[in-house]
């Protein structure tokens, strides 16, 4: 909107899924880290967590509540990741709540028919990909904007689903399916996860070391290693408590890794950023825009299937209101996480952090028994504050 603002975009590069790395080349690494949207979000979440911990009399920071929070975040996080990908490429998806409701229904239907967990989920994912394909084909073949096509999908998929289910909850589903998100992560997996955290952390630390030309990089190395070890230890410790870690975490991590990988390391990801930044430039550069958009919606289709499975597993039934307003929450999470609605800018990590911030608020306020309407008021104010502070720090840095 103003010059200052447009220049704000500069440090948010395509590599923003790994913001410190990209920005670090231009600015001091430490300051960049302090400034990245992810850090501000993490800080905001931390403040909230401490507050809730204080006010709830210590109930918030318990392993059971950590598990709860993860389970409550999971669907939004997964969908927000897909949404971020689409928004980055200049598209949007308003149908995701209805589509996830529909695939969740498919999963529950086959569960009730007595199918096993894997075939039921498979059916849900296939259904999701079909819906994604329909969205993608209409958008690319008939050149109808995604906003309109997915608005139609918003009406269509829920309408069809309600019609098929006669608006009654379908279920309950088997405990095996519930286990898929709500279940406790098996101990070997917990150790595996701990090791994975260590491995990734080590890479991160070394990358910081290698790329750094400035002093303080040794400090950075140490800080990063410490953080990684701390997280790994936390994973292993919490994973062993009676509540343990929920399997939902694996879904979040899985989707984050795949989508984060695609955006960060795959050629497809580069095309997505370019297409979203400047569609005309992308076409001139020889990018097949239609195919890229179609692939994007196919990936989102798979996410419909996963999200539907997770909705059903979490609720134990496929409820007629499942996924209501999911599209809005997911867009909010992505935008809070730094994805620009103008396209070309954003990150999976940010979107997932945005989802966590939103879920933390829900969880904390439910825990405190804050009345519903006041919850919304508080949530609104925190949202604006988080994003405003982020912008403020960023500008201050630039202005100094």
């Amino acid at each position, binding site marked *: 909107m103003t010059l200052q603002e447009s*220049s704000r975009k500069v440090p948010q590069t395509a590599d923003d899924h790994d913001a410190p790395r990209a920005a670090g*080349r231009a600015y001091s690494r430490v300051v960049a880290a302090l400034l990245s949207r992810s850090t501000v979000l993490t800080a905001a979440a931390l403040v909230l967590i401490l507050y809730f911990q204080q006010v709830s009399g210590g109930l918030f920071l318990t392993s059971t509540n950590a598990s709860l929070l993860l389970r409550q975040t999971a669907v939004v996080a997964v969908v927000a990741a897909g949404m971020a990908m689409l928004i980055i490429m200049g598209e949007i998806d308003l149908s995701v709540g209805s589509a996830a409701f529909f695939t969740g229904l498919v999963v529950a239907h086959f569960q009730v028919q007595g199918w096993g967990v894997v075939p039921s989920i498979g059916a849900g994912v296939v259904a999701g990909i079909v819906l994604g394909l329909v969205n993608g084909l209409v958008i690319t073949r008939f050149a109808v904007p995604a906003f309109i096509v997915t608005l139609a999908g918003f009406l269509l998929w829920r309408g069809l689903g309600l019609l098929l289910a006669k608006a009654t909850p379908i279920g309950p589903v088997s405990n095996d399916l519930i286990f898929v998100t709500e279940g406790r992560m098996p101990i070997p997996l917990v150790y595996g996860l701990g090791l994975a955290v260590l491995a990734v952390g080590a890479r991160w630390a070394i990358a910081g070391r290698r790329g750094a030309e400035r002093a303080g990089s040794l400090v950075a190395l140490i800080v990063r290693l410490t953080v990684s070890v701390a997280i790994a230890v936390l994973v292993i410790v919490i994973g062993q408590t009676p509540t343990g870690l929920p399997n939902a975490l694996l879904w979040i991590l899985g989707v984050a890794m795949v989508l984060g990988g695609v955006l960060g390391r795959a050629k497809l990801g580069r095309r997505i950023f370019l297409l979203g*930044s400047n569609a005309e*430039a992308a076409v001139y550069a020889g990018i097949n825009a239609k195919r890229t958009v179609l692939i994007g919606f196919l990936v989102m289709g798979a996410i419909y299937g996963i999200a539907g499975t997770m909705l059903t597993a979490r609720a134990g039934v496929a409820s007629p209101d499942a996924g209501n307003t999911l599209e809005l929450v997911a867009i909010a999470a992505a935008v809070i996480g730094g994805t620009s609605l103008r396209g070309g800018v954003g990150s999976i990590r940010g979107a997932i952090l945005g989802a966590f911030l939103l879920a933390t608020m829900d969880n904390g306020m439910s825990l405190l028994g804050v009345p519903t309407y006041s919850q919304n008021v508080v949530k609104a104010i925190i949202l604006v504050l988080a994003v405003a502070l982020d912008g403020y720090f960023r500008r201050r840095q630039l202005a100094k």
Partner: protein
Amino acid sequence: MDNDQPVAGAVPSVDGRATALLVARSLTKVYGSTTVLNDVDLTLHEGQVLAVVGENGAGKSTLVKILSGVVPYGEYAGTVEVDGNPAQFSSPYASDTAGVVMVPQELHVVPHLTIAENMFAAHLPGRHGLYDERAAVREARKALETFGLEVDPRAPAAVLTPSERRLIVLAAALHRSARVLILDEPTAALTEAEAGVLLDRLRSFRKAGVGIIYITHRLDELKRVADDVMVLRNGRLVAGYDSVPRQAELVSAMLGETLRSIEAIAHVAPTKPASGDPALRVRNLSVFVNDKQQRPRVLDVSLDVYPGEIVGLYGLVGAGRTELGRALFGAWPGPVTGECHIGGTQGLPKNTNRALKRGLSLLVEDRKSQGVFHGQSVSSNMTVSMLDDLSRMRLLVDKPRERHRVDEFVQKLGVRPPRTRIAIDALSGGNQQKVLLGRCLIDDLKVLILDEPTLGVDVGARRDIYQLVRKIARELEVGVLLISSDVDEVLTEADRILVMYKCRIRGEFSRGASAHDLMSAATGASMP
């Protein structure tokens, strides 16, 4: 056709250059009711450089947009063949796959993506769908060596100046193994030296058998690069040469005027003696980048521009001229220190709005991203900065007056087609530039800063613009600061020339200085 000259490529070339790489027959393109390309034929052989010239809006870009799939198959009439097979490109993606690579006239660089990503966009190195950043950086470095550009390919393209952006795109295109390479005004934003490098490269490509279509407004380049030349006028092929003819002959073919009348245009601008109070007075101005390091972009610059005077500001890419202009115009987001008087009143404008109110306007360097309002009419593009003067009760746009003003400008500036209600996107690049110049001509104009005003403007229009700028300066007593990387331009048009090198003014020359003087000041060779 009003011309019986041999048509380039229509007959097989004398030296028996083997196969025809690319053949186009009777290409015709109609927008609405206007035929912008009319029955144009073209043949391109391996190792041939075919230059396409013509005035702004002649249809040059349209021609190559068809050849490269930007205008997709089905939206034009006529046929295109590559290697004797019919080619029906539906997009640049398709043409690219067939080995036809185009660098478009307008810049399409995404500032927040890295330089390497911008360079290789659709052709990123890597396997199994994964992007190999290291390979990309390696390749990019190799490609950038061509122009001796020392930038980090991992940095966002935002750090590049417009001319550097143009260079990375060119470097990337040259780096690809194209069979047909199409360059639409590649040198418009380049310095002489950079252009020289590019032309050398093209010669080596020709040896390797690449067919090249080369569009330019710089006719002096043709001798150095072209085998054949075709001239377009009003969408028609009006002349073709299998060698480079005399410049005057080309110009008359382009403009459809007789040689005599063109030569009569050559002028010597009378020097305007500096007198009275300066229109623009700058003292010890410094401009810093808006980040922690506070890198300076302009250091301690002092200058005066008197009413009616045209001061040239020459320098190489990155010298800091654009920053100086932006700072004076209130459009620099970072810290600025120093003093400034505009028309006698002191102080740096806080924002562009204030600058305009005080009678200072700026013609931006990057037309596409900072100048043109895409999808909006020519008229509203032109009047945006003078709406206050064109409104009734400071509220409603006075449309009759606006129309009148726009018609006047369109006529004065020679905007073609002279339609003011169509979207500006429908104008050719050079004509868009004229519209933006019109935007700068606010009421009570005191200081006009022109940042590379003749980028992509044809000889005829360039002449118009020079004449107009001179008229504005002299008649309206406006002080003009002409930022240019074109030595000839500053030498012929400026009354006085300042040269910038590394953030500072390193030389002042009066009319009649030699190109050599300017060059050595601009490269830091001679310090005053």
